[in-house]
């Protein structure tokens, strides 16, 4: 008796599995019935993108707003990191990618080989990294020179009362305490901006450490994320760290001024960051580093972040939708940036990018 019940159960199970399999086959009668009903509302075109986490808030805002204005397109953006974004775009698992670093020649060549077309860089917004510190008894806004910042991070300046730090800060009494250097532990665009800047202002840094999303740090502790670095700096007496400008603005943290290439000490804000993008010499492919850019009002530790769009998109609908979005993002979309504390693109860059949209075939 018992055996027969079990057999019956197994038969039921087999039948269910069988039906499900048949039902999910494309073009089978069952699936035809289930999807035939809601034919009135066409499902939107789904475009997948993945990449940098730093611009994710503004990208989400853009994609969401654009979808509301154009219900027939929907973007799905995954903040998986710049490296993963470049990889997924190259391997065609997403329609386009996003990165906080311009791709290297090697990566671009790999992408071209895999995609069969170019991968175009489109700058979208700007970010910046700022120095933040915790020195017991010091509340003044400190001024940092390129020399002092790079030598602190090289481990050559170890005390807060080093002449390289006290020099530009007359009137601030700096104690004889050890400097605790804090950096980002995970690979990040902020680290890329920071190390790119240090490489430009200090040849020793360029040859010993170099610039990348993560590097072999000569000294210091790693905190995870902006919040991790900010937390460690806040907790550790004598600490210095670097944080993304947006995080600093949103959390009302105090931070130091940095001397730019014209010798002026500049406080990072949206205007001084956009200024860096305006004075930089923009190459045709938009792969440009704008750290230490020339100009009086320029904050020197700034950078673009990019969308990476293949120059050939075979699917006509997707191509038109992506081109439409890019146009909107560069014009109307830019007005959403400042509310989220991102520095908008300078007008000249926007004009140049609008021309590049036509290269997408």
């Amino acid at each position, binding site marked *: 008796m018992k055996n027969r019940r079990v057999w019956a159960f197994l038969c039921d199970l087999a039948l269910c599995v069988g039906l499900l399999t048949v039902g999910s086959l494309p073009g089978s009668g069952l699936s035809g019935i289930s999807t035939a009903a809601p034919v009135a509302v066409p499902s939107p075109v789904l475009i997948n993108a993945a990449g940098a986490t730093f611009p994710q808030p503004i990208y989400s805002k853009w994609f969401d707003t654009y979808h509301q204005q154009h219900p027939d397109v929907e973007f799905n953006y995954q903040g998986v990191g710049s490296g993963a974004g470049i990889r997924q775009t190259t391997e065609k698992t997403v329609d386009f990618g996003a990165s906080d670093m311009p*791709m290297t020649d090697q990566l671009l060549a790999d992408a071209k080989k895999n995609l069969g077309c170019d991968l175009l860089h489109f700058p979208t917004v700007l970010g910046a990294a700022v120095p933040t510190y915790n020195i017991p008894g010091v509340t003044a806004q400190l001024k940092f020179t390129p020399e002092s910042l790079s030598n602190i991070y090289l481990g050559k300046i170890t005390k807060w009362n080093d002449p390289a730090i006290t020099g530009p800060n007359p009137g601030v009494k700096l104690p004889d305490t050890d400097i605790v250097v804090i950096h980002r*532990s995970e690979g990040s665009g902020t680290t890329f901006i920071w190390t790119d800047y240090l490489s430009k202002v200090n040849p020793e840094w360029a040859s010993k450490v170099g*610039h*990348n*999303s993560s590097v072999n740090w000569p000294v210091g502790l790693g905190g995870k994320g902006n919040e991790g670095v900010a937390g460690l700096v806040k907790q550790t007496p004598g600490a210095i760290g670097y944080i993304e400008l947006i995080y600093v603005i949103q959390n009302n943290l105090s931070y130091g001024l940095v001397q730019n290439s014209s010798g002026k000490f500049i406080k990072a804000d949206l205007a001084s960051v956009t200024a860096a993008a305006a004075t930089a010499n923009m190459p045709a492919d938009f792969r440009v580093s704008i750290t230490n850019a020339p100009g009086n009002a320029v904050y020197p530790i700034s950078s673009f972040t990019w969308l990476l769009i293949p120059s050939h998109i075979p699917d006509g609908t997707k191509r038109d939708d992506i081109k439409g979005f890019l146009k909107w993002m560069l014009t109307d979309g830019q007005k959403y940036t400042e509310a989220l504390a991102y520095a908008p693109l300078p007008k000249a860059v926007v004009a140049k990018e609008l021309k590049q949209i036509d290269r997408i075939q």
Partner: protein
Amino acid sequence: MASSNTAVGVRLPSAPRGRWRWLGGTKGVDLIARLVTLLAALSVLVVTVWLVVDLWQKSSLPRHQFGFRFLVDRVWDPVFGHFGALPFVYGTLVTSAVAMVISIPLGVGAAIFLAELAPRGLSDTLTFFIELLAAVPSVVFGVVGVFVVVPWVRTSFGPLLKDVLGFTPLFQGPDYGVGFLTAGLVLSIMVLPFIVSISREVLLSVPVELREGALALGSTKWESTWKVVVPTARTGILGSIFLALARALGETMAVTMVIGNTPKIVASLFSPGYSIAAVIANEFTEATGDLYLQSLVELGLVLFGVTLVLHALARLLVSATAQKARGAV
């Protein structure tokens, strides 16, 4: 958990014979049950083998370029493409060791109290809370670590250790609050529930007759617990410890939040360090270039190897103590 064949009372009326005996004979349901459970058991094996093969294949670049140097090199430099795993292996082993040193006595002690000495109601209540600890996501432990343990180590515990044990190389140098010691402390709290709840179950499963026998021979409650019950449950307790160790070796989130994330090999426990799991989680998403990415994959392979070696050693230890116990009887 010393099981013996004599304890198995009932045999099937028609015990199958022949080559396919292990399949349980051809009686309908039995056969199906055998096959289904066999499939389940095999799937574990398949996943493990597939994992190793996959990790092996996807790390071919650094394996060819660095060879065994990968295991002993101390430099991890993504900019210049120079990768070595030693500081990460060191950090993984040291933090796990610290965690085990703290959690083994605490966990086994708690299990003995809960199983043998505490009243049943209290024991069940406490066990419930301890098992609840196992359900807390690791990022929560990380946050508690950052906001509670790190300042405590920097301002109170660290200076205390320096005063008392400062003469040993383990407790010297500047104390930032983050480092091997803090990571080990946080890990010890995380693995504690594994040791306590499994050890308690194992102790409870020791037959009452053994306790009664010991008491009848004139031993005190503690003597019967320590000399009879605990040795009987030894294998299971060791099993719980190895499970805890495996968790400690692979823990990622909580460790990366409090270890300082600096690939260094320093004797001082106050020093910031790095662990294998932490560096993979930190750098995988932003890694560009094949060599960099594959070096991270190879780190995963190394972590697998470390776990395997420790587990093999653990097995040897278990069988050795089991033999010793058998010899003693």
